[in-house]
């Protein structure tokens, strides 16, 4: 199942709502705005969306998880990859918004790497989730993905006129239980954006939501306001997160916030139960709660289309 949402400036005001979904998201940058595209739709050739998706977002693959909520997370990731490989036009790059593994173990990273190498999209950019760095700074995650950032974890790059910024908000926890960037990273971000034209489309990705969705479960980033203050002057900003294993979206000015589904298992909606653990659903419903996002961004007129696609 797939669902498109084209976010144009005229629709932004109407999008202050929550949307819940399942599997993965494909993002297309059309006219400067990103849009997620439901993958099933993208793969079906029935998509009426103009242009080629710019990139794909995969999140929360949790390789190593083996409990009832999904005993075969490698299988559902493989299914996701097959889905993407069947798309008639593929984006040039993939972004993984963290929790690649469940327990930060070497063999989990190996399995994830072997599976993700099966993607027909060869360029992969990552940020760590808190499950990837339980062993601390400079270990498994950084051994494999640290070179992009000199082991800092955060970095930026440009692709097709879009400026991408990868941030880390899972290693600097504050007593309030929310994620945090920390002063060094915020200073770097300010510098990174300083001399850029406000017309440059910006894509920011980090694991934990960059707005407070539910504080009691730590679903937010304590110093995110500082980061968004540097982003407000830009005409098109898309903030992509994972962590909560479900789609929640918010639009604030020119900034669109969007969380992706997991490819591994769903989590309860905010506040439903003792904590944000795996949600067991009947097996015939699982595929509908897993997925990815694809994004199109177009410059003229500025718009982003995010398409969320589920595995079933």
């Amino acid at each position, binding site marked *: 199942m797939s669902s498109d949402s084209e976010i144009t400036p005229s629709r932004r005001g109407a999008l202050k709502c929550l949307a819940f979904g399942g599997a993965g998201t494909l993002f297309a940058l059309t006219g400067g705005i990103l849009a997620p595209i439901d993958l099933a739709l993208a793969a079906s050739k029935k998509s009426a969306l103009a242009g080629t998706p710019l990139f794909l977002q995969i999140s929360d693959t949790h390789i190593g998880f083996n409990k009832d909520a999904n005993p075969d997370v490698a299988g559902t990731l493989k299914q996701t990859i097959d889905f993407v490989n069947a798309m008639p036009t593929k984006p040039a790059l993939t972004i993984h918004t963290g929790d690649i593994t469940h327990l930060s173990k070497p063999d989990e990273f190996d399995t994830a790497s072997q599976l993700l190498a099966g993607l027909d999209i*060869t360029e992969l950019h990552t940020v760590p989730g808190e499950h990837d760095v339980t062993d601390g700074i400079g270990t498994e995650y950084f051994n494999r993905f640290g070179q992009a950032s000199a082991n800092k974890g955060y970095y930026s790059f440009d692709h097709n006129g879009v400026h991408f910024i990868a941030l880390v908000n899972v290693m600097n*926890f504050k007593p309030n239980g929310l994620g945090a960037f920390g002063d060094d990273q915020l200073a770097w971000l300010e510098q990174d954006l300083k001399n850029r034209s406000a017309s440059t489309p910006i894509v920011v990705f980090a694991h934990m939501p960059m707005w407070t969705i539910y504080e009691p479960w730590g679903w937010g980033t304590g110093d995110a306001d500082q980061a968004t203050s540097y982003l407000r002057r830009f005409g098109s900003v898309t903030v992509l997160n994972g962590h909560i294993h479900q789609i929640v979206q918010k639009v604030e000015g020119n900034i669109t916030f969007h969380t992706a589904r997991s490819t591994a298992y769903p989590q309860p909606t905010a506040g439903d139960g003792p904590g944000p653990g795996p949600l067991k659903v009947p097996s015939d419903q699982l595929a509908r709660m897993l997925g990815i996002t694809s994004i199109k961004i177009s410059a003229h007129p500025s718009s982003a289309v995010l398409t969320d696609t589920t595995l079933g």
Partner: protein
Amino acid sequence: MLTKNFGRKFIDAFAVTAMLAVASAAGTGAAQGQQANAVVMKNFDFAPMSITVKAGASVTWKNLDGEPHTVTSVDGLFRSGALDQNDTYTFKFDKPGTYKYLCSIHPRMMASVIVQ
């Protein structure tokens, strides 16, 4: 038409690297005889949230949740790594003091060990 304009090929990072050490602190079952100083993680909380032990004693944590947790000291003194369901971790406290720790996966889970 998209142009490829990237300086890094992150796929390189996916080359399977031979891992040197598989030294996970999880499950170090040392000090099995000291279950008196036991803390469990259950329903996204440490219980008890404060435990008092004598200097030189060990504390053993056990995760009862289906979701992994960690025992990560705020000042960096000890770090369990991810503990899956029923995994344990033990740390020996040599010096008196109050040691705050949290779960680095669910940081609202905070507790402390008081060493006398």
